[in-house]
């Protein structure tokens, strides 16, 4: 009954609000009328009776208001009302509104942009269903220092066949294809995948279908699925593409599907997928230590990651406990799973966290700024609010109302912030590193991003609204009414609180400046690292000979010889060579080898090193210094004595006290022993600073490198290298022409100068640093604006004081000094606090710094000086205004 009455009243108050208002109005009027009629009957004149009745009833507005408060829908009603009121308030004060909304939007936008990148890359990559259910299979070799590398076909087969754990599983290896359609052949980026590849990611083709198990067979591999980008670029988005035949690597492939725009695994620039079609014997157990594939699986529903990983360890023991081979045990081999998200997150985790911290600082500063503005506004609003309190507005109601005004501000900030984020992502993608290469659609404003933005937006409102609300609830309406706008206690605490906020902003800004300084210094140190070779003037381009056409080593070697011969005699070329892999292409394979006369004891995995196949010109063109013996020569060819060259690291490790020249080594048991003929210098191979980390494949960093002559073994692929005395870009035509002259069907790919490749390897660091610069500038700028606002306000408040001082003989310099002294004090406090906080926070940066201490005094001092200069500049402008005060006007002004 009670509940029913309540619901009835709730419904009534929600849907019949006007009716209720009219009823109430009529009821109250009837009340007054009856009272006045009674008074009239007792002998008063009608006018006097009406007056007394009204007086006795009191403020009818207050009565209506208190009745309204009894209504169940009161909260909603006032919310709408306050929202409208809030908008009106903002419109009445457009200067404040624009500054506050823009400030907030900058803070929110920066956070949203960073979060949407994190979301798009790691948390919820587009085109992938339930990314948290996908795992990547990895193996390790404890003794060889390989912590996490790709897997072999037999490794994968074990996981694939564990159907109680994996719902679907797939194997992938990257493969480029020569595509000839127009005048020039083109190199397309492809991936050879086992048939469940798309199932693992939960991706459905936009057109057509994915592969069937029958198509994923050796010698049956003639279907192709196109990426959306390739479909658009090569075929103009032709809807009739299905069933069409395209020529890839001189063979016919049938297009059976097109993937949607979002899906681009394993590579953002992928053009096409073909079936892997591994032969049955590839999965044989003796192939276990031949890792060259990315293995992925989708976990069966209900299977946790920990369960799946534990099961994988059990699977690994089949290999470890295999009595036929002790290699797994000797090398401390192991197999494990990594969640897809952390696999991708990997190296980017620290930089992303740093950027996330930076944008959080920007938002905090923005909040402090708005809080300062609100406090200043509260000074002018305090009379209005006091008046309303005196007229019967309850305190809770007034606080709620100012809160709603702030929420209106927050909502506007969120909307504009989303726009800023969009714009920011668009602009920064122009400068993005290759691993970020992607268009804006990869970072959509989806539900996750939107919720994140709304949450931080409202959080921001809570933060910046807290100070003014606290002040409001602590002020006495009578006080505020008396307060003449200056020299009152409330005004002074307010001003002191604003100063405190501004000092905090300056401190946060300083921390960001210090971090940015450290990162920039580290970046400049890295780019000064000597790579160990001479990259200047070198042009390079990739070649991959199709198996169908170049099916024997003889044909491959003949092709490369012909091209190099042409290159060497081309004008402008001082030296030409070829080899695989090339430094700074991200590729760095390594392999076991054997040393003649060095027995491998039990429990020893044997020698291990990075391996390269090169022509003589590889060393001379890249300027890799010869330390001992000789380079390869043209005489090291098929049929002559097998030879090898090692680098100084390998010489130190395996022949520490003897001359390695003349010693012999070989890769496989069936290969001939190769005589070491030379020792060369060690060069940086994948990055200038830190470990030469590997990227997929059976690749790693090892302590040494060994080279084999490419033209003595086989040459299915490799990079062409040409050196000139001048600008290497002049050589790109030369390279292309040399290849074209030998075989017009062979495209060159990945054409780039060596200097550009090295610069490219620094792009992630550059990108992170430039974003940090943007955020630091934003943070410092915002805190400068905060200081500017504070000083301007205080100058305006003190106009008459300044007038008196000037009338008493103070000159302009005195006034300037007086105002600046105050802001210098703030700047010093902010700097001091910022230095201390920075001292603790920059420690987190140490892992990404190269050759720079996280406590680098230069960066700290530079940041402090920069901040103090900015602060003085920000306060100089309003301080000058103070000196222009005309004492007469100032004293008359009240």
């Amino acid at each position, binding site marked *: *009954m*009670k509940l*029913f*009455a*309540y619901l009835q*009243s709730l419904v009534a108050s929600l849907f019949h609000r006007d009716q209720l208002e009219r*009823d*109430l109005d*009529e*009821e*109250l009027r*009837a*009340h007054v*009328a*009856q*009272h006045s*009629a009674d008074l009239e009957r007792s002998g008063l004149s009608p006018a006097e009776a009406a007056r007394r009745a009204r007086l*006795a*009833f*009191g*403020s*009818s507005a*207050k*009565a209506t208001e*208190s*009745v309204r*408060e*009894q*209504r*169940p829908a009161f909260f909603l009603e006032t919310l709408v009302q306050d929202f409208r009121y809030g908008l009106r308030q903002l419109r009445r004060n457009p200067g404040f509104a624009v500054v506050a909304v823009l400030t907030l939007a900058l803070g929110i936008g920066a956070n949203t942009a960073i979060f949407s990148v994190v979301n798009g890359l790691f948390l919820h990559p587009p085109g992938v269903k339930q990314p948290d259910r996908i795992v990547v299979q990895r193996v390790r070799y404890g003794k060889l220092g390989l912590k996490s590398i790709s897997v072999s076909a037999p490794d994968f087969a074990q996981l694939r066949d564990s159907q109680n754990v994996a719902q679907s599983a797939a194997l992938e290896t990257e493969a480029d294809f020569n595509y000839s359609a127009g005048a020039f052949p083109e190199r397309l980026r492809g991936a050879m995948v086992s048939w469940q590849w798309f199932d693992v990611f939960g991706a459905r083709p936009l057109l057509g279908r994915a592969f069937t198990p029958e198509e994923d067979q050796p010698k049956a591999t003639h279907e192709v699925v196109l990426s959306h980008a390739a479909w658009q670029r090569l075929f103009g988005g032709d809807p009739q593409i299905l069933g069409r035949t395209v020529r890839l690597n001189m063979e016919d492939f049938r297009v059976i599907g097109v993937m949607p725009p979002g899906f681009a695994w394993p590579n953002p620039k992928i053009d096409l997928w073909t079936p892997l079609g591994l032969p049955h014997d590839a999965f044989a157990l003796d192939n276990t230590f031949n890792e060259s594939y990315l293995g992925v699986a989708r976990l069966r529903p209900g299977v946790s990651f920990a369960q799946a990983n534990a099961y994988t360890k059990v699977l690994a023991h089949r290999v470890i406990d295999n009595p036929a081979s002790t290699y797994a045990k000797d090398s401390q081999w192991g197999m494990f799973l990594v969640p897809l998200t952390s696999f991708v997150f990997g190296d980017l985790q620290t930089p992303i966290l740093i950027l996330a911290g930076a944008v959080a600082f920007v938002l905090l500063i923005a909040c402090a700024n708005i809080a300062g503005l609100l406090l200043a506004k509260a000074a002018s609003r305090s009379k209005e609010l006091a008046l309303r309190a005196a007229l019967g507005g*309850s305190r809770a109601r007034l606080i709620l109302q100012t809160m709603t005004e702030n929420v209106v501000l927050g909502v506007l900030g969120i909307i504009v912030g989303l726009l800023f984020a969009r714009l920011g992502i668009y602009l920064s993608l122009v400068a993005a590193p290759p691993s970020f290469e992607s268009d804006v659609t990869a970072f959509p404003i989806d539900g996750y991003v939107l919720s994140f933005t709304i949450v931080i937006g409202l959080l921001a409102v809570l933060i910046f609204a807290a100070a003014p609300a606290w002040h409001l609830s602590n002020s006495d309406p009578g006080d505020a009414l008396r307060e003449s706008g200056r020299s009152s206690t409330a005004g002074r605490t307010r001003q002191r609180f604003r100063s405190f906020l501004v000092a905090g902003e300056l401190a946060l800004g300083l921390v960001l400046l210090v971090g940015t300084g450290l990162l920039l210094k580290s970046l400049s140190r890295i780019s000064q690292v000597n790579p160990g070779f001479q990259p200047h003037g070198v042009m390079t381009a990739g070649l991959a000979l199709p198996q169908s056409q170049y099916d024997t080593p003889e044909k491959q070697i003949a092709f490369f010889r012909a091209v190099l011969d042409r290159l060497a005699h081309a004008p402008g070329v001082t030296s030409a060579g070829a080899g695989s892999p090339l430094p700074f292409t991200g590729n760095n394979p390594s392999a076991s080898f054997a040393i003649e006369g060095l027995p491998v004891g039990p429990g020893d995995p044997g020698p291990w090193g990075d391996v390269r196949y090169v022509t003589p010109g590889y060393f001379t063109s890249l300027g890799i210094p010869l330390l001992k013996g000789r380079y390869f020569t043209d005489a090291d060819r098929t049929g002559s004595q097998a030879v090898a060259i090692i680098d100084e690291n390998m010489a130190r490790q395996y022949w520490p006290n003897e001359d390695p020249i003349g010693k012999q080594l070989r890769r496989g048991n069936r290969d001939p022993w190769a005589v070491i003929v030379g020792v060369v210098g060690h060069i940086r191979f994948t990055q200038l600073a830190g470990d030469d980390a590997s990227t997929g494949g059976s690749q790693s960093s090892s302590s040494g490198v060994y080279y084999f002559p490419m033209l003595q073994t086989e040459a299915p692929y490799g990079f062409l290298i040409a050196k000139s005395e001048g600008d290497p870009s002049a050589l790109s035509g030369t390279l292309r022409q040399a290849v074209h002259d030998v075989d017009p069907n062979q495209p060159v790919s990945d054409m780039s100068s060596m200097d550009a490749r090295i610069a490219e390897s620094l792009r992630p660091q550059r990108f992170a640093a430039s974003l940090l610069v943007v955020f630091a500038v934003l943070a410092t700028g915002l805190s400068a604006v905060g200081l500017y606002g504070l000083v301007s306000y205080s100058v305006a408040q003190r106009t008459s004081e300044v007038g008196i001082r000037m009338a008493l003989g103070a000159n302009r310099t005195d006034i300037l000094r007086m105002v600046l002294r105050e802001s210098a004090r703030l700047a010093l406090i902010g700097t001091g606090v910022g230095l201390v906080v920075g001292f603790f926070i920059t420690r987190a940066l140490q892992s990404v710094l190269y050759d720079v201490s996280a406590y680098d005094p230069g960066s700290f001092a530079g940041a402090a000086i920069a901040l103090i200069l900015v602060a003085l500049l920000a306060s100089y402008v309003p301080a000058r205004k103070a000196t222009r005060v005309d004492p007469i006007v100032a004293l008359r002004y009240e």
Partner: protein
Amino acid sequence: MPDQTDLLPGTLDLLILKAVSLGSLHGYGVLLRIEQISRGAFLVEQGALYPALFRLVRQGYLKASWGTSDNNRRAKYYELTSTGRRRLREEQTSWNRLVAAMGTVLGAEPEEV
């Protein structure tokens, strides 16, 4: 509720329920009735009456309907619901108990302790 300073908190509701229990009344009538039965001891502030009436309606103790007053004006009349009647009885009992207890306490003499 604000401004019920002349009355003990909660007593306004009881006074209204009692007044209305003697026959249905409009708002002004409630005021007059309270003044009359309290022999002028309680002067209910007029602006506080309507919020209380509204609250009692919402809580289901009173129900309101439009009618015509003795001087031919449209007026909203309030009457007790059955829950309202029960509430009045309960309140009355507890009030009497409170008054008796307070009387005993305040009438205590030193020798009784």
